[in-house]
C-alpha cells in the first residue's frame, strides 16, 4: 500500500493531467451528445412515428462493444482524439435521446391540454411546460451518460487520446499493480462522484433544478475545456506503447541515458505504426526487426549509448539434447550471423505484408544462404521438439530451423509453435517438454534471470557482454546452452519516418535529443 502512495506521489503531475484529460473527454462528448440528443428527443416526441427507428439506431450503437466501436472508427478517423470523442458521443446519445423523449411524452395530457387551453403556442408549451417537467427525467439520462462515458473514456488510451486509461493499460502491460490502481481508482472515484453529484441535482425541487440545470450547462463546457488545458506541444510528437513507456529498459532508460524529455502519447502498440505512417505522431517506440519498418519506410534511430539492452536472438538448447545428438549443435550453428537486422526485417515484411507462408520464406532464405538441402527420404526415428512464441518472427525462425535440421540431419523435428510468452517457453524447455527454442538475450537477462540492480549496473549493455552473461548463467543454473547468435538484434528502438529524419538531419537518438533541445 505504501508503494501505491509512493507511486501516486512520484507521478502526481501525470496523474493530474490524465484526470483532467479524462474529465475533458467525458464532458466534451457529453456536450456533443446533449446538443444533438436533446433536439432529437424533442423531435421524436413530436413525430412519434420516427421514435422507434431513432431509438432503435441509438440502441444498436449502444450495444456495439466499445473496443469494436473503436475498431470501426480508427479506419475512418485515424487515431487520437477523433475516434475517442466520437465513440463516447455515440454511447452518450441513447440515454439522452431516450430520456428526453420519455420525459416529454410522460407529461400528463391534462397539463398539456391546460397549457394549450390558456393560449400557449407549441413552442411555449415545449419550453414553459414540457421541458421543465421533463427535466428530472432528462437529468437521469445525463447522469447515465456521464457514468458510461467515465468508464468508456479509459479506452481512449488505446488510441492516444489520453485519460486515466494510460495508467490502467500501462499497468496491465507491465503487471504493475500500483500503476493499474493509480488509473483505476481515480476513474472509479470520478464515476461515483459524478453519479452522486448528478443524483443530488436530480432530487432538487422544481425551481432549484432549473437553476441547477443551468449551472450544469455552464459547467459542462468549462469541464470540457480541461481537455484543451495541457497545451504545450513538443516539436516532434512521440507515440509510445504503454509497455515501453513504463518499462525500466524503455522510456525511463532513454531519459536516464540521453536525457530525452518528451510528452509521449500512449497508444496501442499495433496502432503505433499506422499512426506514424499517417503523420499523427513523429517518433514511435517499436522493435528493431519489425516488418513494418520496411513497409512504412521508417528509420531506426541508432542507440550509440546502449540505452536499450540488446535482444540478440540465439537458440537455447537443453544440454542433454546436445549430448545425445552430437550433430545437432553444429547444425544449428550454421545459421550463426546469417540473419542480420535487415535480413530479419525483410523476412518479417514478407510474412506480414506480402502474406507469404513462413515455410516458403524459410526455404527461400536457406537456399540463398546455401544451407538448403532436400531431406533424405526414409524413416526418421529420432525426434527433437522445438518451441516458439506466438509472433511472426518466431514462426519464421521455427520454419527455418525445421527445414535446416531435416535437410542436414536424420532427425525428425516436431514443432510446438504458439507457446505464448517467454515464461511458458522457458518452463517447457526446463521440464523437457521441448528441446530448444529461439530466445533473445535481453529477455533471458531481464525476464528470466532478473539479476539484482547492482549486477545490472556493472554489466555493460552490449551484445557480447550480455550474451556471455546469460550463456554462463543459464549453463550454471539450468543446464541450458545458448548456441551462437543468429546475428540480428530485436531490441526496443525509436523510429521516425525516414524522410522526416533525413530532413531534420536525425540519425541517432542523440541527434534527436539535440534537435528537441534546440530552441
Amino acid at each position, binding site marked *: 500500500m505504501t508503494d501505491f502512495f509512493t507511486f501516486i506521489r512520484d507521478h502526481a503531475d501525470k496523474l493530474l493531467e490524465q484526470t483532467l484529460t479524462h474529465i475533458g473527454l467525458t464532458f466534451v462528448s457529453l456536450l456533443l451528445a446533449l446538443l444533438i440528443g436533446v433536439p432529437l428527443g424533442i423531435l421524436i416526441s413530436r413525430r412519434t412515428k420516427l421514435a422507434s427507428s431513432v431509438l432503435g439506431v441509438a440502441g444498436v450503437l449502444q450495444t456495439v462493444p466499445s473496443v469494436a466501436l473503436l475498431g470501426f472508427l480508427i479506419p475512418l478517423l485515424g487515431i487520437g482524439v477523433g475516434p475517442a470523442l466520437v465513440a463516447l458521443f455515440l454511447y452518450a446519445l441513447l440515454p439522452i435521446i431516450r430520456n428526453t423523449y420519455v420525459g416529454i411524452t410522460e407529461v400528463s395530457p391534462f397539463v398539456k391540454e391546460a397549457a394549450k387551453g390558456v393560449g400557449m403556442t407549441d413552442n*411555449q408549451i415545449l419550453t414553459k411546460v414540457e421541458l421543465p417537467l421533463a427535466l428530472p427525467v432528462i437529468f437521469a439520462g445525463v447522469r447515465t451518460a456521464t457514468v458510461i462515458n467515465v468508464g468508456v473514456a479509459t479506452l481512449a488510451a488505446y488510441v492516444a487520446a489520453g485519460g486515466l486509461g494510460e495508467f490502467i493499460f500501462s499497468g496491465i502491460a507491465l503487471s504493475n499493480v500500483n500503476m493499474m490502481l493509480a488509473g483505476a481508482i481515480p476513474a472509479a472515484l470520478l464515476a461515483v462522484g459524478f453519479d452522486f453529484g448528478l443524483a443530488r441535482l436530480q432530487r432538487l425541487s422544481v425551481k432549484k433544478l432549473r437553476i441547477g440545470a443551468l449551472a450544469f450547462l455552464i459547467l459542462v463546457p468549462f469541464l470540457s475545456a480541461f481537455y484543451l488545458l495541457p497545451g504545450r506541444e513538443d516539436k516532434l510528437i512521440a507515440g509510445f506503447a504503454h509497455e515501453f513507456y513504463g518499462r525500466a529498459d524503455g522510456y525511463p532508460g532513454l531519459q536516464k541515458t540521453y536525457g530525452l524529455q518528451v510528452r509521449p502519447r500512449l497508444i496501442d502498440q499495433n496502432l503505433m505504426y499506422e499512426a506514424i505512417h499517417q503523420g499523427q505522431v513523429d517518433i514511435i517506440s517499436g522493435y528493431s526487426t519489425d516488418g513494418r519498418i520496411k513497409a512504412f519506410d521508417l528509420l531506426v534511430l541508432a542507440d550509440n549509448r546502449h540505452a536499450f539492452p540488446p535482444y540478440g536472438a540465439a537458440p537455447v538448447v537443453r544440454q542433454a539434447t546436445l549430448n545425445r545428438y552430437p550433430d545437432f549443435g553444429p547444425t544449428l550453428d550454421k545459421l550463426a550471423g546469417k540473419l542480420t537486422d535487415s535480413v530479419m526485417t525483410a523476412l518479417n515484411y514478407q510474412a506480414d505484408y506480402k502474406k507469404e507462408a513462413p515455410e516458403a520464406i524459410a526455404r527461400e532464405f536457406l537456399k540463398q544462404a546455401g544451407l538448403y538441402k532436400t531431406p533424405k527420404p526414409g524413416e526418421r526415428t529420432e525426434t527433437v521438439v522445438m518451441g516458439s512464441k506466438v509472433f511472426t518472427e518466431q514462426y519464421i525462425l521455427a520454419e527455418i530451423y525445421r527445414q535446416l535440421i531435416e535437410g542436414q540431419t536424420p532427425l525428425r523435428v516436431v514443432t510446438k509453435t504458439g507457446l505464448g510468452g517467454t515464461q511458458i517457453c522457458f518452463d517447457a524447455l526446463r521440464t523437457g517438454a521441448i528441446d530448444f527454442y529461439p530466445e533473445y538475450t535481453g529477455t533471458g537477462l531481464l525476464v528470466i534471470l532478473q539479476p539484482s540492480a547492482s549486477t545490472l549496473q556493472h554489466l555493460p549493455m552490449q551484445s557480447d557482454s550480455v550474451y556471455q552473461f546469460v550463456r554462463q548463467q543459464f549453463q550454471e543454473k539450468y543446464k541450458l546452452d545458448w548456441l551462437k547468435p543468429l546475428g540480428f538484434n530485436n531490441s526496443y528502438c525509436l523510429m521516425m519516418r525516414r524522410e522526416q529524419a533525413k530532413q531534420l538531419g536525425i540519425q541517432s537518438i542523440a541527434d534527436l535529443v539535440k534537435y528537441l533541445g534546440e530552441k
Partner: protein
Amino acid sequence: MIEIQNLTKRFESHTAVDGVSLNVGSGETLVLLGTSGCGKTTTLKMINRLIEPTSGSIRVANVDVRQQPGPELRRQIGYVIQDGGLFPHYTVAEAIATVPKLLGWEPSEIQKRTHELIDKLQLPKSVLNRYPSELSGGQRQRVGLARALAAKPPVVLMDEPFGALDPFTRRHVRRELFGLNELKETTVVLVTHDVSEALELADRIALMDKGRIVQIGPPAELVKQPANDFVRDFLDDKPRRLHD
C-alpha cells in the same frame, strides 16, 4: 356573445357533434349537460379551437373564431378543467400570472391583479408561493379559476371544473365561486354530467344526447316542460327505491 351554427364534428369512427346551433348571451351561464360521449366536451373545445370543427361556424363577440390563430384566441377565453389543470412546476402566483404574462402585461399590473383575485377567491396570501401539490382540492380549483379569470376574459369555458372534488366540497366551492361578481359579468359555458350542478348554476341548460341538443332552455322549463321522456328521465335523478 357566442353564436354557434350548424356545428358538426366527425371523427373517423363516429359523429361526435351533429348540427348543433345555439347562442349564449353576454353574462349568461350556459350549461352543456349530458352523459359521457354525448358531444358536450367536443362542442366546448371547438369554441376555443382545441378541436377544429368539420363544418359549421362559431362566432365569439361577433368574430369568427377561425379568423385568428388558436393561441391568440385562447388567450381571450378563460379555460378551466378538472382539478384546475394546474402546471405542477408553477407556484400559485405564477399560475395566476400565466395568461397576463402571455399577453405581455406589466409585472406591477400582474401583481395587482393577482392579489385582487386571491382576495376575491378567499385564498390566504401564504399560498402564493406554494405548488399545486401543496394545496387542497378546493384550493386548486380556486386557483384554476383565478388563472382563467386573470386577464378578465369576456368568456370562460369550464370542462367538468368540479369533477375532482368530493360532493361536499364541490357544493361549497361552486356556491362560493359562482357568487363572485366577477363571474356574474362573464359569459360562461360549463360542461357537466351532474344534474344538480346544472340546475343550480345554469341560466340555461342545453341537454345533449348523441351529438345533438335535445332541449335547451332555463332549468325550470326543462323540469316542468320536458320535451320528451329522455329529458324527464335525465333530470329526475333523485334516488328512488327499487321496484318503485
